[in-house]
């Protein structure tokens, strides 16, 4: 049984504690930087404590019940549109919630001595906390309107983060990010409303809508269109080829913390939306869309990899690699099989950990060398051996080395593509499978190339005696070690996530395993 306190208050507390922290910080003058940092960290740790208590309690409920929603809170919210405050956790959201809970405190720790220009820790940390609420809210919301609100709450802090603390071209990147996402969410909202009217539903709850769709005879054309709207909304967030162009700019310009949160959690909102909303509510349309999604996914894999090979900037390269990696996630989703979707969720977590780490490293390299141009770097292993080895480790993880987390997002997705769900063109998906497998070679190529150019060799004359270049410092260690450990742990014990997601995934798939 769920713990009674958690049942009533757990989720709500977890979601809104960061907001409380943000309000407290607003009341303090911005000169007290240390206080702000302490409060921000404390808030995120309290959130994490509540959240992990929830997740662990959830874990203890036993695998038979992981497919159901737990800790459900269902209250009136906006009666006039039948929107309800309906939240809950199941096996699909639990890993992502845990990921968010982990990443945000680490980002705040990293901020301790890495507040980007132009400073102002107060505003920066408040934005992170608001983001925190938005992200957690999106993962627990079980009502479409609520989900939409949280989904949009995330947008604004990120916009400011890029626009204020970003690089040289920050305004362009911030506006591009904002408009792209807003465009997608507008279509998504239209889809939600269409779903509501077409089904004649009296609720926006995801479960309710899924039942409505299943019980009513809705034209496949209509379903296809509605799914299309969601596809645009979530696909842009993922981002899927060819809607990805906001991503490299946003990542390159964003401050390190912004990039990490963007890569680790924000992108997952898109794929999570597919798994949580689009697929369960419109399974038939998903089957119709599968070849398109799969095609764009593998196009993204190859395209992202080629894009990486053309990069001269380390951070931009990592950003492009996200396009490729999210391609595997989307391929897994497109197969509509348990194996594929489990892999997709695993891929989300793994990508969050690994790419988050890579962005951390890029930020630290930038801090030391004041440049990320691959040509000018080199010999990182000589000047900052630990940093170099960590980069090497993350590169290996990112290219999907078995035994590290990245592999379990890629290989099962490729495997699932061999035999997608009934109703999906098998031959086509086998072609996708081969293309995706070729993508693993390209991934190795660009990542190792990056490693060779930055870490191997000897330092260029420019930086040879630069006193700024030092090895990993304490805050970096504290922020990174949990991520590094988890990358190895998930690599060797993939069951931690697979077993968690599997019941929930099997439950919503049409007819289970084909």
């Amino acid at each position, binding site marked *: 049984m769920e713990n009674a306190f958690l049942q009533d208050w757990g989720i709500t507390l977890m979601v809104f504690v960061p907001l409380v922290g943000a309000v407290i910080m607003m009341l303090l003058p911005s000169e007290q930087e240390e206080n702000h940092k302490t409060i921000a960290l404390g808030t995120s740790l309290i959130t994490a404590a509540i959240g992990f208590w929830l997740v662990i309690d959830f874990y203890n409920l036993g695998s038979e019940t992981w497919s159901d929603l737990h800790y459900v809170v269902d209250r009136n919210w906006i009666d006039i549109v039948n929107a309800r405050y309906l939240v809950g956790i199941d096996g699909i959201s639990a890993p992502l919630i845990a990921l968010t809970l982990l990443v945000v405190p680490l980002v705040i720790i990293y901020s301790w001595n890495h507040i980007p220009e132009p400073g102002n820790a107060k505003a920066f940390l408040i934005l992170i906390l608001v983001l925190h609420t938005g992200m957690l809210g999106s993962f627990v919301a079980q009502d479409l309107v609520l989900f939409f609100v949280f989904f949009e709450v995330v947008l604004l802090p990120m916009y400011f983060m890029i626009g204020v603390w970003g690089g040289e071209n920050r305004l362009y990147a911030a506006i591009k990010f904002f408009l792209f996402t807003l465009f997608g969410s507008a279509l998504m909202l239209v889809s939600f409303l269409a779903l509501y009217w077409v089904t004649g539903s009296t609720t926006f709850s995801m479960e309710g809508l899924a039942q409505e769709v299943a019980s009513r005879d809705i034209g496949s054309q209509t379903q296809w269109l509605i799914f299309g709207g969601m596809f645009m909304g979530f696909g842009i967030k993922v981002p899927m080829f060819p809607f990805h162009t906001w991503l490299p700019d946003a990542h390159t310009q964003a401050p390190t913390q912004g990039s990490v949160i963007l890569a680790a959690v924000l992108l997952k909102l898109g794929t999570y939306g597919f798994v949580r909303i689009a697929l369960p509510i419109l399974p038939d349309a998903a089957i119709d869309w599968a070849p398109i999604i799969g095609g764009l996914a593998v196009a993204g894999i190859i395209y992202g990899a080629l894009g990486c090979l053309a990069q001269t900037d380390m951070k931009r390269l990592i950003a492009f690699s996200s396009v490729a990696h999210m391609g595997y996630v989307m391929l897994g989703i497109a197969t509509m099989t348990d194996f594929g979707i489990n892999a997709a969720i695993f891929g989300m977590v793994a990508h969050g950990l690994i790419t988050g780490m890579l962005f951390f490293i890029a930020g630290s390299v930038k801090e030391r060398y004041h440049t990320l141009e691959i040509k000018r770097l080199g010999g990182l292993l000589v000047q900052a051996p630990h940093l170099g080895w960590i980069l090497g480790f993350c590169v290996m993880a990112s290219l999907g080395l078995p035994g590290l987390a990245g592999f379990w997002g890629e290989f099962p997705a490729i495997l699932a593509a061999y035999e997608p769900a009934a109703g999906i063109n098998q031959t086509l998906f086998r072609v996708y499978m081969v293309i995706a497998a070729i993508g693993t*070679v390209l991934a*190795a190529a660009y990542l190792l190339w990056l490693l060779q150019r930055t870490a191997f060799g000897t330092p260029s004359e420019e930086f040879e005696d630069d006193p700024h270049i030092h090895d990993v410092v304490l805050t970096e260690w504290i922020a990174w070690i949990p991520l590094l450990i988890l990358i190895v742990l998930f690599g060797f014990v993939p069951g931690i996530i697979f077993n968690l997601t*599997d019941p929930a995934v099997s439950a919503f798939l049409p007819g289970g395993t084909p």
Partner: protein
Amino acid sequence: MTTFLPLLATESPVAVPGIFEIVWIVPAIMAASFVAILLFSKRLSIPAHWIGIPAIMASFLFALAIAGNWIAYVGDVADSHDSGGEALAFVDGDPELAAASADDEHGKSIGVSCLTDDANHADDGHSDEESLAPAALGFVEEGEAPHVSPCPVVTQVTWFENGGSAASGGSDIQVGTMVDGQSVMLLVVVTFISMLVHIFSTDYVAGDRRYTHYFAFLSLFTASMLFFVLSSSTLQMIVGWELVGVCSFALIGHWWEDKPNSDAALKAFLTNRVGDIGLLIGMIILYFAAGRTFDIRAINEAAVTGAISQNTLMVAALCLLAAVMSKSGQFILHTWLPDAMAGPTPVSALIHAATMVVAGVYLIGRLYPVFYVGFDIEGSTINPLALVGGITCVGGGMLAFVQRDIKKVLAYSTVSQLGYMVLALGVGAYTAGMFHLFTHAIFKACLFLGAGSVSHACHHSFDMKADMGGLKQYMPKTFWTFVIASGALAGIPPLAGFWSKDEILVGAGVWPGTGGNGTYYLPFLFGMLTAAMTAAYMTRVIWLTFFGRYRGHAHPHESGNRITVPLIILAVGAVFAGFLNVPKVLPVLGSRIGLWFEEMVEPAGIATFPVIDHGKPSFSLAIVATLLALGAATLVYVYYKRLYAKDAMATDYTDSFVAKNRFIRAGHTLLVEKYYLDHLYTGTIAGSTKGWMAQAAYWFNQNVLDGFIDRVGSGTTATGRFIYKYIDQGAIDGAVNGSGLGASQSGEILRKVQSGRVRQYASLMFGAATVLAAVFIIAV
């Protein structure tokens, strides 16, 4: 359709030694050693080898214990079968059985199933030991002694579940260990060679700037390799396969300050990744074909019993062949292996000669039924496996002739010998292939370590022509061990290589009276040619290195004990290892220990392995092959002897026909340029991928996709500007401005009312209120 012959003995099966269930400890020790070295070695300033060497010794002892138990176990199972055999009877009346045996075209039976009912054990999720000693063989071909091997002993736990647990209709993905002849054999080889390399390294890499990392990666490599070797599922094999790859990457690039080294490391990794496409896809095909399982036994049984169609198996086998080609350096994906010599020499010995590169061969052996059935090895005359192996052993051997670098010669020799093993498996000579793997590991490790010892004496140079020559007198121990190992490699009786090579040639089934699984003329030809070439290029190496006059500028000296003792141990192995599998027909030894290795390693009478024919050994073949090798060696010896007589310092005839004849010169250039494969890969394929393809994709991104977005953005802005300028400012604002003008004029009038006196305002307000009240009263 299963065609098992379910004849079970009535008496209790032989107990499985408990030690087989804890064999996971062996890789675990090495993994722990890796972690310990990384964490503690520098911090507590413990020399890394103080952690690494005890760990590898413990592993080796454990491996020996496993091997001892396995040997006893094989004997027990065979005995139990012998005694239980009479109790068995054919169930004549059983129609299914009769149909099963009738189906079998070749009149061979399929042995006892090694699969127990997994579902019974799956839900407990813990160590469900599935070991069943097979008690019987269906029926035995007449005239052949009944030989029944034990089933692989598998111990596994659930790694993760998919689609619910197996009990609820999903599948459990298992991870565990599989102990059988093949894995025990490699377990011993890996730990043995690794141990010697560890010892050798304490001297050889002493004082290296990354001594600690070196030993850490040696440990990690050994752990990964053992993990791979002991895999019980194909998924686990993929994991181990790639982990050894990454250790190889790290160790090739050990001196990463120099770009050629890191280039070589990258090349090795990327080439292997190319092959891994095949590995992934092949394993995926087998997973689905065998009914959603990664279990090696299940896949093998499905292949043997015909549960998987031959076409599917062929496609899977072709995919896996790509993986084998990359990992085991087969043509055309071999190019990384010679470059991998950029790593420290002991690493070359351990990883790029003795153990990791045989992973491909091991993979074929592990999934032998897939290849055997898929390529229809039985009774054919050529198949992809034999062809690839054949081309590799000749192509690699030829390249060995033109190298200046002693390690490169050995590398190409490794390529060539790996081709030999693949060829052996391709012609159906399973045991011969495995035996060659075994012997080759020993003598090739000896050769590499010998080369290391030589270079240790010559200022770390590997250039035979510039820095060596005449070393025989300076370093006799190295010389003699090198010569013995070379003899073993060249197949000079009675050294180890002779026995294994002979079996492969027998297995090709071409020589009169040898029998075998088919008649592989072309592979046989390649095999004979390679036998001659091997002897020739090894003679060249020995001459250039040890004979003649010293050409370098160092002061060569014999290496220390930590280097020579491993060499001597390996040389002793190179002499005696071959006797483990002498033919039964050999006088004296044959009747006592004949085919002992085969009995221990090759599964027989169980359904996870196809029934294969063994060729009959032929004295004439052995003599011819030996004469060929000796002849080639003599030829080369005479060639250099005459050169020496002419000019003591020369290494080439300046006026030889190589220098004169246009065609031969072209051939020589072709070899020096390594068949231009590197140009193709690095220049054409990698270059264009990284070059115009990547640039085109990025151009597309920036100018087409992003251009579109930017155009939409700027278009919107332009529209906005238009609307602002003409509609907003012109029309709407015009109206507004007009009204504003009117307002300001009326304001002029009303201005006077604004006196600023509060009381005046108040009276106005009250007045207005009164008026309003009056209006209300009147109107309402």
